[in-house]
C-alpha cells in the first residue's frame, strides 16, 4: 500500500491501514529501540503509542506529513524512546517519590465511568469511541456503522452520550451532587 492510499484509508477510519502500518514498521522500530538499550516489550509500547497518535492526527487533520510515513513513525519513536531513556535515568537517581496525592473520589468516579462504558451496548460504545478518540466525522461514523446519514450518526451520538451520562450519574451516591 502506498502512503497516499494509507492516508486515505486512515481518514475514513479504516483500521486495515493501521494494521498494515503496524506490521510493516514493527521490525524496524523494534530494532531501533533494541539497539538503544530497549527491550522488545518497550519497543512495542512506544510503537503502539506513536502509531495510535498518528492515527488520530491523520483523521483529525492535525498533521502535515512532509516525509514518508515510515520515516515519520521512525523519528517519532526515536524521540519517544529518548525521552523514556531520560526519564529512566532520572528515576534511578531519585528515591521513591513521596506518596502522590491520591484522590479517592476521583479514583472512584473513574472506576464507575469505566464500568458503565464496559456495560454500554456495542453500537453506542463504538459511536462514542469513534467520535472522541479517533475523531471521525459524523459522515465517516455513519459509513462505518452503516447508518444512513451523518445526521443519524449525530443523533445517535447525542443519545448514546446522554444515556451514558445518565447511567454514570445514577451510579453515584446522591451526596456527590450538591443540591
Amino acid at each position: 500500500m502506498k502512503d497516499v492510499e494509507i492516508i486515505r484509508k486512515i481518514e475514513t477510519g479504516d483500521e486495515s491501514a493501521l494494521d498494515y502500518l503496524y506490521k510493516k514498521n514493527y521490525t524496524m522500530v523494534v530494532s531501533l529501540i533494541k539497539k538503544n538499550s530497549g527491550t522488545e516489550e518497550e519497543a512495542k509500547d512506544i510503537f503502539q503509542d506513536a502509531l495510535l497518535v498518528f492515527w488520530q492526527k491523520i483523521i483529525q487533520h492535525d498533521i502535515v506529513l512532509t516525509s514518508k510515513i515510515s520515516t515519520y513513525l521512525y523519528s517519532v519513536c526515536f524521540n519517544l524512546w529518548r525521552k523514556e531513556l531520560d526519564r529512566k535515568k532520572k528515576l534511578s537517581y531519585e528515591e521513591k517519590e513521596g506518596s502522590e496525592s491520591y484522590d479517592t473520589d476521583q479514583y472512584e468516579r473513574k472506576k464507575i465511568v469505566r464500568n458503565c462504558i464496559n456495560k454500554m451496548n456495542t453500537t453506542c460504545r463504538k459511536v462514542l469511541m469513534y467520535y472522541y478518540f479517533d475523531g471521525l466525522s459524523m459522515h465517516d461514523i455513519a459509513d462505518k456503522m452503516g447508518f444512513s446519514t451523518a445526521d443519524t450518526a449525530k443523533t445517535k451520538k447525542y443519545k448514546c452520550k446522554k444515556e451514558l451520562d445518565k447511567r454514570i450519574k445514577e451510579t453515584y451516591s446522591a451526596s456527590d451532587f450538591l443540591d
Partner: protein
Amino acid sequence: MKSNFHDIASIEKYLSGSLSSSEVISFEKQLASDPLLSNEVSLQKDIIDGLKKHRNTELKSRLSGLTPYPNYINIAKWTWLGIAASGMITAGILYLTQPSISKQVIAYNTIDYQASCKKQLTDNLIASTDNTIIIREERSSSTTLSEAITSTNKDVQSNIEQEKAILPSIDSPNNHLFALDEEREISFSNPNAKEKKESHSSSNELTANNASVDINVTYSEDGLAYTFDEDRLTLVGRFDKDYPYTIYELNFKKKMYFINYKGDYYRIKKTTSLRKFSKLTDQDTIDKLNNLDN
C-alpha cells in the same frame, strides 16, 4: 443538578479545545463561580477520557494480535540517467560489497551516475532524508548491498550534479570502478546504440570477467538478462532510461533477490552464465514484494 444539552455541548467544546480564546476566558469565569458547572466539567472530562482510554486499549490489543512482517529490505533503486538516446543497450554492474573489503561499487554508462553511486554505497551510511528511509538489516554483515540507500530519482539527480566533476581514481588497488567503454562490445550489442559522449578509462578488471564476452552471443535484442556470481550482479539489456528498476532482497525462508522493472518482478538467481530475465508469477511473493514498495 441539571445539565441540559446546551451545557454539555459547551462543556465538550471547552474540553476539546474548540472554543476561541475569548470564549475560554468567559467559560472559565463561569467555572470559577459555579461549582456545579465545575463538577460537571470534571465529570465530563472523566467520561471522555474513559471513552478514549477504552478505544486506545482496544486498538492496542488489536495491534498486539498482529504478526509483523519479517525483516525485508528494499535495496537500491537505480535509475538510468544521462543517456542521450533511449533504447541504448547498457549494462550495469553491481557489487555486493563487503565492509571488510573496501570495494567500490558500480559502473554505469555515465560517469555521473557512477560517481554518485560510489558516494552513496561506499559511505555505508544509514541516513534519512525527507523522501528516503534506510533500513539496516541486522543479520549478516556480509552484504552491504543491504545497507544501500533507497533514493528517489530526484535525489540521484541532485547527487549527480554535485558529483559530476569527480573522476574516480583508477590507480588504487581496491578500485573496481568500471566504466562501460564504447570499445567494449559487450555492452553495445545494439548496432543502433549511440556512443557515450563522455569516455573514461576503464579498469582492467573488467576483462577478467569472461561473462561479459559471452553476452553478445546469447543476448537477443529485446530481452533482458543478467549474471549473478559471487557478489557481482551484471545486468544486460535495453533498459529504458525512463523506467527505474529496483532490486529487492527478501529474507523470508532464504535470501532471494528480485528485480522490478516496468511493473514486473524477476527473480535473480546466482549464475555465472548469462541468464534471461524470467517473470515472477507466484502471487504470494509478488504481494510480499509489493509490500516493500513505498
